[in-house]
């Protein structure tokens, strides 16, 4: 941020956590939080579009949805859910530590959050690998062979199943992309803390904003998990 040329204003603000366009800290904090929430509102509409498409197709192809979802591993999905919930917990502890200006704890909790994120991605990798092995990736090589062994799923509609897996990959894929972005942002935040950058040490709000993003990613998964992995008979 030092490279951005701000219109000249008093040097007295150099060490203050309040940026030049704000009058006081409260105004700045609330502005940042509203800014972040309006950004999250658009993320809700972004993922929301996918949820809507999912709901429409599920209501149309209910049986196929049930049959197709048996290919998903509830244990892996459930583990991922726990991992993400735990990472939300460590994230909020990091924010808490930032409020108390406890650098060591912040770094510890940020590290834990990043660690959880990696665990999530690794489990996801194995899940995707399984799908590849069972030829369940949409495209020219898609096949419902995997479902032929079980009499309950033998009658699956192959085209609707392909739509199911299209949505599965689109939604969990986009979610995983947001996790990757989250790891990068968390990493950048941790780096600022490691270098004792005043941006984060004087003001807990940047840490809080990253936290808001991370919790949002968790909320998306909270809905993805039951919708894909826990479809009732």
């Amino acid at each position, binding site marked *: 941020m030092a490279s951005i040329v701000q*219109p000249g204003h008093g040097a007295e603000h150099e060490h203050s956590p309040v940026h030049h366009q704000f*009058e006081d800290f409260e105004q700045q904090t609330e502005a940042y939080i509203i*800014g972040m929430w309006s950004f999250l509102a658009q993320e809700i509409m972004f993922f*929301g579009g*996918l949820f809507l498409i999912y709901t429409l197709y599920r209501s149309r192809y209910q049986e196929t949805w049930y049959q197709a979802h048996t290919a998903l591993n509830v244990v892996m999905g459930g583990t991922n859910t726990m991992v993400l919930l735990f990472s939300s917990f460590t994230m909020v502890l990091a924010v808490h530590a930032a409020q108390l200006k406890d650098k060591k704890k912040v770094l510890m909790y940020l590290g834990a959050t990043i660690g959880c994120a990696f665990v999530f991605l690794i489990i996801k990798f194995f899940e995707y690998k399984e799908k590849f092995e069972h030829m369940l990736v949409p495209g020219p090589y898609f096949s419902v062979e995997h479902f032929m062994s079980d009499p309950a799923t033998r009658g699956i509609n192959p085209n609707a199943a392909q739509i199911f897996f299209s949505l599965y990959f689109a939604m969990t894929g986009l979610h995983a992309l947001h996790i990757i972005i989250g790891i990068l942002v968390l990493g950048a935040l941790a780096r600022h803390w490691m270098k004792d950058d005043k941006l984060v040490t004087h003001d807990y709000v940047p840490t809080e904003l990253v936290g808001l993003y991370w919790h949002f990613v968790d909320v998306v998964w909270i809905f993805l998990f039951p919708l894909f992995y826990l479809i009732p008979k």
Partner: protein
Amino acid sequence: MSATIVKPAEPAAPKAAKNYLNAEHTLKSWLLTGDHKRIAILYLIGVSFFFLLGSIFAGLIRIELTSPTGVMLESETYNKVFTAHGLTMIFFFLVPSIPAVFGNFFIPIMIGARDLAFPRLNLLSWYVYMLGGFLFLCALVFGGVDTGWTFYTPLSSLYSNSQVTLAILGAFMAGMSSILTGVNFIATIHKMRAPGMTWFRLPLFVWAHYATALIMVLGTPVVAITLLLVLFERVFKIGIFSPELGGDPILFQHMFWFYSHPAVYIMILPGMGVQSELIAAFCRKKIFGYQFVAFSSLAIAALGFVVWGHHMFVSSESMYQGLVFSLISFIVAVPSAIKIFNWTATIYKGRVHLQTPMYYALSFMGLFTLGGLTGLYLSCLGTDVHLTNTYFVVAHFHYVMVGGGVTMFMGALHYWWPKMFGRMYSDSMGKISAILTFVGFNLTFFPQFVMGWMGMPRRYHYYYLTPEFQPYHIASTLGATVLGLGFLLPACYLTYSLIKGEAAPPNPWGAHGLEWDIPSPPPSHNFEEIPIVMDDVYDYPEDGSDDDTPIERTEKGLDPLPDEGGHHR
């Protein structure tokens, strides 16, 4: 409240005074600026470029249509040209135009702030916009897109061989840019108003931009995900809209229009905000029914989200659904009509000053009304079956988007030019351009209403089976030439004014507003001291005592109004 008057006889100090333009001269200071005013100028350059590009495509379309069998383009190229025209004008000109240029420049000043809430995010918005523009230009250079700007599936997702992927990425980036601008405006308008600047003391320009920001933030992500899914279908073969798999191509249309209808309100609401400013200033009168106009902006934004189905009346949408959308489409016309009534009531018994911006404002009144009324024909299920996908639709949306949106862009440009650049332009040239634009525009698009009513379909390259439409097309092309001239002239005299124009006083129009209290061009930090707002908005005196602009006072031989000592507004 009297403006800070500077005697025009003495060229004001502005040329030498430090302002945001001459604060630093390096390229780096422009490309890494956090100053909302500089970013606005960067956007102005960008949108002007895309307007020129889009106009060239429009010119090509009009040339092609002068003959029933085309003139010089292959049909596939013609498809690419009208697609390029739509994409350029919508995503790269109209959506950013007023908000990114005038919103960025004036919202902080109008609310009494030093900058937007997030200056670096503002700069990022511009870079993302330019990246999107670059990707889109790549799409054009590598062969163009032939799907229409609406990207209907399965043509766009499966069958088209054109640069759909690149074009989608470009549009996606442009959308991202507008989302970030929206986030910035929302935080700014909520949290950065000066002491005493209550919501109901805000200029209507700010209300309009708040409503626009709401739409940008809540609507744009939907088209983002929709286009992304089309991209996935092309690249990864993930077929969500694919009919062979039991997918529904109409679902694409639902998702696409869920954004694209509110998008048209993104394109008009800022223009309506400008209109409020122009009418108030040039009639020296507070806008009639200020609160109604303010809330109508919010109503348009909210209602605009639930009318998207009127674009799908004939694409196998359930007719019961169509009934609902038809009804709500009629209802959404009401807040717009309220604004027109209130502006008319403001002009009535106002003290009208006919200068260039007012010409554009009056032009808007007529053109937008006609555009809006013809929209009702399209909202009506029965008539829409006849009129849909004809030139009637084309004429309707050009009346509101060009007659409304672009006219207001020009009006804003002419109104705020002296403030932004500290130079006056020739008012008579301005008036001539406004008239040329008005005449050219009507000549271009009114025949299209007639043609559409008679059945000429849109997006058709050849019409040799119905050559009776040719005279209308020729009239339309003639009009387009005049219209082009009307847009070209300002490019010339405004640029000329930057070099040879007279220095502008802080308030050349005699208008009321925080932006007119500061020098032209403004200093980098906007205000010496943050103003404490005690007066109401648009508080023009009833007796017309400060009616005349400084220039008019000089012409009449009157003394300049005494300066009441500073920033008390």
